[in-house]
């Protein structure tokens, strides 16, 4: 049962990763792509970690896996802010839709 | 085809690519990159070839760890020299050798 739930979470995680990648490819500019990566991939990572934690041998191991998530989140947030900040400092204008650009 | 063997083969190709890069490229930083690729190739062969039956072997792993440290030291030295040269000549390429 737990294993099944874990595997399910892994699949959901994979799905979010996939969505993030699709977003990266399809979204029009750097800001929107940042959205895709920062949100979808991190959610994917969270699901994967949760799925693996469910299958872990010990509580400590599970907690350790889960500990990665906040770290990755913090990293992701900081990096995406840094990139966005730099982009606008360098004058990259956000995409305003095809009709308006 | 085992994991070890696959990466050993990758290592050989990387080594060849890296060596060609060190020898043929002009830009110094690029040559330093190429050297690192070359070294990584040799490391991959070292570990991969030794465990081509997929039995992990700690000895080559220990060697590679040492090797990585050596490679970083070499890279740092090369970069320091390249930067000094750049500061003096404004270029990241070697001037033609005047050897006599």
């Amino acid at each position, binding site marked *: 049962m737990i294993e099944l739930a874990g595997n399910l979470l892994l699949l959901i995680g994979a799905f979010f990763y996939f969505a993030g990648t699709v977003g*990266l490819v399809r979204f029009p500019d750097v800001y929107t792509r940042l959205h895709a990566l920062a949100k979808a991939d991190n959610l994917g990572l969270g699901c994967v970690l949760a799925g693996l934690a469910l299958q872990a041998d010990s509580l400590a191991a599970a907690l*350790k896996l889960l500990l990665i998530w906040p770290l990755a989140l913090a990293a992701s947030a900081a*990096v995406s802010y840094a990139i966005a900040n730099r982009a606008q400092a360098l004058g990259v204008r956000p995409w305003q839709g095809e009709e308006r650009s | 085809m085992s994991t070890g063997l696959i990466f050993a083969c990758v290592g050989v190709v990387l080594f060849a690519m890296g060596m060609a890069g060190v020898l043929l490229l002009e830009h110094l930083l690029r040559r330093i990159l190429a050297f690192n690729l070359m070294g990584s190739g040799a490391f991959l062969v070292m570990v991969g070839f030794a465990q081509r039956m997929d039995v992990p072997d700690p000895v080559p792993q220990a060697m590679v760890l040492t090797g990585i440290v050596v490679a970083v030291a070499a890279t740092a030295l090369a970069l320091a020299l390249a930067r000094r040269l750049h500061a003096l000549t404004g270029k990241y390429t070697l001037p033609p050798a005047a050897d006599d």
Partner: protein
Amino acid sequence: MSLAVALFLLLNLVAALVAAARGPTPADRMLTALLFGSTGVGVLVLLAHAMALPSLVDVALTLALLAAIAGIAFARRAWHSAGQADD
């Protein structure tokens, strides 16, 4: 199972890498930093499970931290122009 997911993630990673590395602006390449932060860590923990090598989790932890540092360093130090192509 986890290995299959890892493979899928690697595929994702490669596809995204190709897209990001292709440009056209340096900003797109910046995204590789983010990509490795999340996807690389995911692959590593999955590998840790699949190969029964718990110490790979430590690698994943380190990578998560490093990705942040490297990404910020990227943005701050190496990205200097918003041009379409690099100079």
